[in-house]
Every structure is written in structure tokens, then in C-alpha cells.
């Protein structure tokens, strides 16, 4: 029995929150600039717009911090155990032998902050799976949704270590040859 690997030893780095805040600011600036352009003749609307934008920013930022705090993962011998949820808690047990692919990703902001995102996918088709298909590039969402587990904000070194750890566990849990490969 190897000792379990968890978010305690390989945490989501605090600077990921800062990176995410920058991303939110960037998106809000882009989207709110359209509103300001549209209503440039009405200054009062502009002031209300700024308040609204600040509230949206606070909401998105705080929810990100809380989601990060609520998300936990543990690599056990047979399962990848995941927990998430601020109000409604969810726990997922993902057998290594169902993992379809492992994805390591670095966006432009990840490069600046020296972070990496690990994505683990199986073939599960849960609720809203069709909507999720349209949003195939939604990499930076933390936690699990449908067939995808996203662990963002890892240091490059930790992400590489976790990737190897998952691959070793996939190897240690081979599929019965009578299966179709799914």
C-alpha cells in the first residue's frame, strides 16, 4: 500500500487565486467596455455600471476562493477520491481503470504565474453533458463536472508529479482484457 497523495502535500497554490482574480478583471473590463461604449452619452448609467461590475467581481472572486477551499483530492490505491461543494457537498470516487486520458495544460497566465493545470477524464456522461461539449475549452474551472476532473493552480513540478502518479496508478490497475476498452 503506497501512502495516499492529497491536496495537503500538493496543494493548489495561493497565487492561482490571484491569477484567477486577474482573469476575472480582464474579462469584466472587456465585457463592461461594450456597455460603456453603448451608453457613453449617459454618464449616470456608467456609474451604476461600475458598481455592478464591482459586485460581479466580488461575487466571482469570493466564490472562486470558497470553491478552492472546498475542493479536495486524494489519490488512494484504487480510487481517486474528490470532494467539492460550498453548500451542497459532493464526493466522487473515480476508479483509475476508467480514466481515459490525462491532460496537462498551461495557459498564458499560467506561464506568467508558473502554474499548470491537470485534467483527468473518464467516459462518464452525466447531466448537461451536451452543454459541456460545447464548452470544451472550459479548462480553468476547479473541481469535477461530468467526465472531467480539473485540478488547476498546481506548481509545474507538482503537476508533473501528479501526472506521473496517476499514470502509475492506471498501470497498476489494468483493465480486464475481456472489456471493450471503455
Amino acid at each position: 500500500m503506497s501512502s495516499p497523495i492529497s491536496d495537503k502535500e500538493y496543494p493548489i497554490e495561493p497565487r492561482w487565486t490571484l491569477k484567477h482574480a486577474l482573469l476575472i478583471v480582464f474579462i469584466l473590463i472587456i465585457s463592461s467596455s461594450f456597455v460603456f461604449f453603448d451608453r457613453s452619452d449617459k454618464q449616470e448609467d456608467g456609474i451604476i455600471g461600475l458598481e455592478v461590475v464591482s459586485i460581479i467581481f466580488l461575487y466571482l472572486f469570493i466564490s472562486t476562493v470558497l470553491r478552492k477551499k472546498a475542493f479536495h483530492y486524494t489519490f488512494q490505491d484504487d480510487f481517486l477520491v474528490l470532494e467539492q461543494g460550498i453548500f451542497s457537498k459532493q464526493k466522487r470516487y473515480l476508479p483509475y481503470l476508467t480514466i481515459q486520458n490525462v491532460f496537462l495544460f498551461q495557459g498564458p497566465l499560467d506561464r506568467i504565474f508558473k502554474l499548470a493545470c491537470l485534467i483527468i477524464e473518464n467516459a462518464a456522461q452525466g447531466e448537461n453533458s451536451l452543454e459541456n461539449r460545447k464548452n470544451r475549452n472550459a479548462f480553468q474551472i476547479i473541481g469535477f463536472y461530468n467526465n472531467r476532473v480539473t485540478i488547476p493552480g498546481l506548481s509545474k513540478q507538482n503537476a508533473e508529479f501528479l501526472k506521473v502518479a496517476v499514470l502509475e496508478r492506471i498501470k497498476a490497475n489494468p483493465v480486464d482484457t475481456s472489456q471493450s476498452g471503455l
Partner: protein
Amino acid sequence: MKISLSKTREQFPLSEKKILKKTIKGTISKVLFIGVFWFVAVISKVLDSKVHATSSNAPVFYTILALSLMFLICILSYFYQRWYFATYYYDLTPDFVVIKKGPITPQEITIPYERIQDVYVDQDIWDRIFGLYDVHISSATISSGFAAHIDGVEKQAAEGLRDIILKTVQQKIGKPKSPVAS
């Protein structure tokens, strides 16, 4: 530029024609766009100078500007594609297929052979012109559709990659063949 070689890439190399193909494919629409702008700007200036019976250096200036922009886009795109080509990594390890691409925002996908659903080889119109092939490796996930492909290999390499992947998949999940009834 140092090429990130693996045993697989040494055995089944990417074609250098890929650099040229991707440069042309990536720049042609931008060059045409600038060309159309240049044409409209020059024609309007020429007509304007005829109406007002004045002479202007603007058409020459527009021509130099358009040509410089086109040249700059082509050069930048060419060097980016060379960089992309050099960092393109793929390896068929005994247990996994590993594909890593993207010099600025790297993404790495690892697929266990047992999860590969099919392998297909295709050519778009640019591949037809340059005699190149794309080898796609599908697992049951959406990400594998856009990340798990080795593009820009010549026919021999494409067939070699396809054969070796299919053979390994067969070894990993296949059962001994039984004769077909009737």
C-alpha cells in the same frame, strides 16, 4: 532550434513541409485581408485625386505599408511555426501515447492504449497539396478529439504510426482470434 526528439519522432519524423504548410495556411487569410484594404484605399485615393485634380503620394505609402505588413506577418508566422515544429513532441511509450504541443501555452495529453477507441488518418486540402497526413487517436473523451493527433507526417510515417498504435491496442485489449462462424 533544438528539436524535442523522442524515439517515436526519430522513427516516424514530422515533415519539414509542415512548417511551410502551416505558415501559408495561417497567413493567407490575413494577407488577403490586407490586400483588399490596400486595394480599396488606393482606388479611393486615385479616384479622389482625379476628382480634385491633385496628386498624392498616398497610394505609394499605402503600397509600402501593405507590403511591409504582409512581409512582417509572413516572417513572424514562419518563425512561430518553426518554434511550434521544434517543440512538437510525441512518443509511443510501452503503456501510453504522449502528445505535447504548443510552445507558448503547452498542452500535453497522455492516453493509455487500453482506452484508444480508434485511429484514423486524414488529409485536408492543404495536406493534399503538401502530401502530408494527420494521424488522429480517439479515446471516449471530447478532448482527445482536438488534442490527440499527430499532424504533418508523410505517408510512410503516418502508416507506420497507425500500424504500431493499432498493434499495441490489439495486444493490450484483444483476445486470441477465433474463426468466424459460417
